[in-house]
């Protein structure tokens, strides 16, 4: 469904993403992990059209989308959320979600109805009249998810939707993400919360210093020497095994 080939992106002298590739098949939940500053968010932003890659290609459902504007990529069926939540602060949750729903309909009533349905899916039914600015961190994360869902994507790119949530909230949002996949949406997620990644993702990619260093099932990744060293430092794998 999504094919990312040899994407590179530099900012000044810093190579944020260095020839990274990944694939997502239809119906999967794929995780993208890596230490802080590994380039995960940059890779995401590049896939979603927010940065133009220096090299490499992205194709979605067989069509090349490299360097397309974000709104065109969204219209093609792939939408991203933001790690640092970006609510429309001055308007209600309902209006926030309606902005997403308006991608496919110009009809206000239809968009409002769709917004309510999506709010139900992510558990925001009781917060529809609240302003974006008045939401808690967990509420904002859900709103990110809801707005993106309302655009009717086939592939959802989730950037750390669990960061900053407490364990109960994480359990809830893991359930929400499962429901979303069950509704037929493929998911690629960046996550720091390992427990969530291992319980959600079928496959995991590990990015370190801009490079893809490993790929596999969560169990295999947790056992991968290069991955352990990336997180804990050089030689850590040996120490752990001793």
């Amino acid at each position, binding site marked *: 469904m999504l094919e990312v080939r040899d994407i590179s992106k530099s900012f000044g002298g810093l190579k944020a993403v260095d020839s990274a590739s990944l694939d997502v098949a239809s119906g999967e939940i794929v995780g993208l992990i890596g230490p802080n500053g590994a380039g995960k968010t940059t890779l995401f932003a590049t896939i979603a059209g927010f940065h133009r890659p220096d090299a490499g290609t992205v194709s979605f459902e067989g069509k090349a989308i490299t360097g397309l504007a974000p709104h065109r990529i969204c219209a093609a069926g792939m*939408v991203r959320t933001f790690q640092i939540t970006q609510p*429309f602060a001055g308007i*209600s949750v309902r209006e926030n979600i309606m902005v997403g729903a308006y991608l496919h309909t110009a009809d206000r009533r239809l*968009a409002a109805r769709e917004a309510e349905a999506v709010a139900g899916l992510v558990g925001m039914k009781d917060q529809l*009249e*609240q302003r974006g600015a008045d939401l808690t961190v967990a509420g904002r994360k859900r709103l990110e998810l809801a*707005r993106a869902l309302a655009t009717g994507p086939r592939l959802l790119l989730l950037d750390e939707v669990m960061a900053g949530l407490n364990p109960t909230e994480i359990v809830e949002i893991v359930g929400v993400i499962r429901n979303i996949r069950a509704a037929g949406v493929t998911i690629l997620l960046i996550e720091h919360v390992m427990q969530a990644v291992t319980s959600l993702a079928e496959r995991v990619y590990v990015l370190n210093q801009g490079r893809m260093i490993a790929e596999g099932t969560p169990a295999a990744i947790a056992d991968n020497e290069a991955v352990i060293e990336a997180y804990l430092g050089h030689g850590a794998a040996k120490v752990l095994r001793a």
Partner: protein
Amino acid sequence: MSRVALLCVVGLAAALAWPLLVPNYLVTVGMLVFFTAFIGQSWNIAGGFAGQTSFGHVVFFGTGAYTSTILQVTWGWNPWIAWIAAMAAGGAVGWMIAVLSFRAGLRGSYFALITLAFAEVFRILANSVPFTKGGLGMLIKADPSPANFQFKDPIWIYYLALLLCIVSLLIAWQLTRSRFGARLVAIRENEDAARALGIDVFAEKVKVLTLSGAMCAAGGTFYAQKYLYIDPGIAFGVDKSVEMLLVSMVGGAGTIFGPLIGSFTLMGINEVTRWLASVVPALKNVQPLSLIVYGIMLILIVARLPDGLMSLFRRRPRHA
């Protein structure tokens, strides 16, 4: 909602009856209230709803005033038809400024400054090119007749201003309930999020500035037809830009009735201070008193009511 509808009906009835009940002078004051609300609304659509704050909206106003006046005086067009051309010209200038500045990625205060620069460039051009008659300004020959867009009785120009104001309110109302309006608000609130959700931010911003420019230009022609004289300072002066911005901010930027309430308030202050200056000898030399009161009021509103006077009427959204 029905309370708002009731207020609208009462307000409309009062506005319709006003010129029949008061002396001519107050009819003109009423006309200015609605006219300023109209051009204020043109600013509000771009600056309030879409968040594209402009300091140079007068560029559209002057474009409209000069387009219709030149077509009328130099080319002998009927002013009503020239009015349509003026709106088209205002829209074209709005489109041009939007394409140039948004292609270059200008946002926020940079965009505001570039609009100010455009207005100044237009003022200087109007001062120096021959077809505007330069600094001498242009005089429209007085020939009062409705076919000429000139009215003997101020009551008609009053009703025309009222009509313009109503049309602008309807446009703003439509924005609050349409996809286009929702997208503008999304762009105002967070441009990146808007892009991620499939909104062509550039195209929407160009659209709104074109619409706003056309509306404001309509106000320019109206003004020229009312006073039958324009010069570069009147047509492209900074004070008109400030007036449009001020009535919207005071009333409530991004709200339907903000510009009207702001215009009503500012014109009210204007009249009261003028009256005060005429009866209180100590104030006679404090001129113009209205500007001092405006200034104080603006400070108070920015500090205490950043959403404008409208926020006094609106019930706060429920908090959880």
